[in-house]
């Protein structure tokens, strides 16, 4: 099936997309025939997971090259889709629009950062790492600098960063599975993990690649369809992306009238009232916080191993570069939709001229709306008449940020089939990212720690069995942590980015761009950067005074300069790398010829 499959990718995924659209139409028909919303939700989640499982099973392999790097035969456009799914987590899918809704200008740092990072990936990292021919990111560090200590440090940073991230993803799959299948969250987490492992365990990177392509198609349809549909039914234009400037201006006008910025007098756990202006960039400190967040996210993007390793799977250096371009194009489709969604949803809730508005209406009337009741009953929304005047004020309307995406179909009065579609999209987004992260961790431990450091004589079969056992163990650990519901930790996806850039950004960049960088310098860079970032995070989390306003979301801004200085100073104080290593760096910069590491390394 292998050769056939690669030759027919367009046809296979075209059929798949067509099949998915037919499935959506079928669900819409079932809804009209009176099938319950709950059943449709279950069918959506179950059907898509069954498809991913099928792809995972068809892609099973016992070859090292296929398991670690999908046999290096993934064409650029498909790798772009797989990377986009790998990249866009449950948080991007569910929380991004909500973040913009609540966070205003400050939050836009995430939007700029999570796209601009790909310029760094393309300029500084991906083509060179592909030329290198490594299986994992620590594989590059270990070979470029030499020695097990450097490799080990890279493994530690990778595991900490990716594990922080993966618990949040397993949590998201658990939340969605729990709601769609109507089971308790604790079971939902394990069910989600089961779905995730089905995709990755049998076929490693090869299986994850082809399921991620399928998951991207589901998640982008699930994101765009409700927004465009809502825009059409509510009269915001056929394609909302280019015409919502007026909506933003109208929001600015209403913010003054409704008194956005008045602090609420009550508190509800996990929920927020809108207090930040939609479009109010500041100067000085406010601009610094926005840009420092963008920088932390950009450098983090370029250091996160589960993203970098996707570019090891292309047939050539040129295809690796091309696939970075397609990755960002596919990511852009979602990221430039999220602000439109946030703006239009906000306008629908605020503008008294629109039928959907809730602010300024009587509390009783709002409490009787079906969508308000639905989301109140699951603890994601609350309406409370704090000043007892019978009218809903802006600071009396509380909700979780995920609502902006999840409830849009209901606010706009779309059929339930669209909500089912959104659940399937959120599940796809969380599962694909979780798969990439779990594989990054398990591969680093099995290839770099077990094979390269502990038992270099292990045969292929043992290596691949160890890789799979680790995958299950790490997945179970992630699900266990997620089931503890430590929301303080799960909320901080941004931490993963800062762990990664504190420890890995400069050792990776300078490994390619600075021949003089040596093992001692790289180790100092990883250890000092990672330690400085982590200590600063602990200090800030325990109420320490922030330096330059940098909080837990931006601790990489502390870790990175420490890493750079330590790496440069220590490199210069110790002997330069030997001629062989310097020749290797020259060779990495040159796209043609053979990879540095051969496929049996």
């Amino acid at each position: 099936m292998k050769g056939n499959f690669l030759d027919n990718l367009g046809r296979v995924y075209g059929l798949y997309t067509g099949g998915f659209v037919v499935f959506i139409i079928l669900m819409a028909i079932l809804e009209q025939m009176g099938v319950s919303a709950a059943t449709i939700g279950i069918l959506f989640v179950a059907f898509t997971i069954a498809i991913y499982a099928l792809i995972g099973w068809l892609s099973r392999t016992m070859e090292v090259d296929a398991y670690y790097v999908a046999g290096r035969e993934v064409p650029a456009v498909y790798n772009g889709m797989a990377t986009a799914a790998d990249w866009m987590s449950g948080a991007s899918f569910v929380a991004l629009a909500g973040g913009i809704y609540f966070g205003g200008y400050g939050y836009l740092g995430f939007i700029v950062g999570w796209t601009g990072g790909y310029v760094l990936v393309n300029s500084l990292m991906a083509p060179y790492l592909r030329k290198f021919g490594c299986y994992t990111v620590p594989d590059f560090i270990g070979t470029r600098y030499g020695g097990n200590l450097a490799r080990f440090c890279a493994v530690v940073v990778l595991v900490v960063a990716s594990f922080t991230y993966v618990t949040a993803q397993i949590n998201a799959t658990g939340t969605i599975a729990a709601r769609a299948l109507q089971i308790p969250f604790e079971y939902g987490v394990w069910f989600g993990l089961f779905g995730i492992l089905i995709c990755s365990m049998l076929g490693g990177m090869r299986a994850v690649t082809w399921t991620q392509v399928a998951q991207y198609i589901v998640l982008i349809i699930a994101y765009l369809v409700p927004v465009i549909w809502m825009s059409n039914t509510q009269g915001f234009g056929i394609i909302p992306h280019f015409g919502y400037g007026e909506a933003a201006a109208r929001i600015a006008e209403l913010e003054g009238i409704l008194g956005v910025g008045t602090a609420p007098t009550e508190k509800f756990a996990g929920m927020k009232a809108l207090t930040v202006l939609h479009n109010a960039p500041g100067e000085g400190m406010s601009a610094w916080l926005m840009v420092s967040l963008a920088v932390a996210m950009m450098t983090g993007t370029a250091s996160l191993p589960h993203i970098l390793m996707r570019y090891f799977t292309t047939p050539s250096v040129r295809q690796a570069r091309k696939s970075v371009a397609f990755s960002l194009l596919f990511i852009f489709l979602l990221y430039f939709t999220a602000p439109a969604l946030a703006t239009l949803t906000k306008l629908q809730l605020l503008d008294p001229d629109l039928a959907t508005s809730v602010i300024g209406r009587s509390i009783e009337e709002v409490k009787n709306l079906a969508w308000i009741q639905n989301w109140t009953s699951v603890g994601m929304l609350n309406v409370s008449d704090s000043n007892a005047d019978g009218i809903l004020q802006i600071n009396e309307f509380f909700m979780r940020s995920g609502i902006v995406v999840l409830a849009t179909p209901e606010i706009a009065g779309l059929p339930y089939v669209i909500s089912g579609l959104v659940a399937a999209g959120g599940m796809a987004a969380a599962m694909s990212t979780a798969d990439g992260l779990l594989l990054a961790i398990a591969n680093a431990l099995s290839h770099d720690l077990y094979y390269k450091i502990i038992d270099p004589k292990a045969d292929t079969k043992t290596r691949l069995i160890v890789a799979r056992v680790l995958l299950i163990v790490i997945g179970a650990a992630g699900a266990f942590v997620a089931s503890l519901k430590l929301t303080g930790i799960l909320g901080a996806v941004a931490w993963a980015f800062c762990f990664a850039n504190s420890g890995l950004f400069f050792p990776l960049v300078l490994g390619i761009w600075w021949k003089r960088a040596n093992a001692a310098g790289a180790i100092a860079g990883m250890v000092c950067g990672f330690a400085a970032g982590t200590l600063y995070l602990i200090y800030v989390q325990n109420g320490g005074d922030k330096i330059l306003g940098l909080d837990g979301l931006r601790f990489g801004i502390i870790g990175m300069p420490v890493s750079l200085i330590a790496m440069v100073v220590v490199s210069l104080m110790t002997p330069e790398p030997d001629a062989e290593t310097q020749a290797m760096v020259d060779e990495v910069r040159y796209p043609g010829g053979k990879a540095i590491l051969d496929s049996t390394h």
Partner: protein
Amino acid sequence: MSDTSKSKEGHWSKTRNLTFFVLFIWFIFSMVIPWNAKALNSMSFLGFELGYYMCVQGSLAVFVLLIFFQNWRQDAIDDEFGVGE
């Protein structure tokens, strides 16, 4: 110095210049423009305030185009030195 190492040096210096140019554009759109969003908001673009527009769409689109541009130029450099694959 042999021919290959000379051509390698030429290839790398062109690659490096292209990279620095790309990173300069990236710096403008990822840092300078978001930093000055307030000042830019006094101008309008497609019915949006410009500073806001750049943060939600403009800079993002520039990043996409920038990577396609860089790859187009890098491919030309690789072909010029005969190292394209």
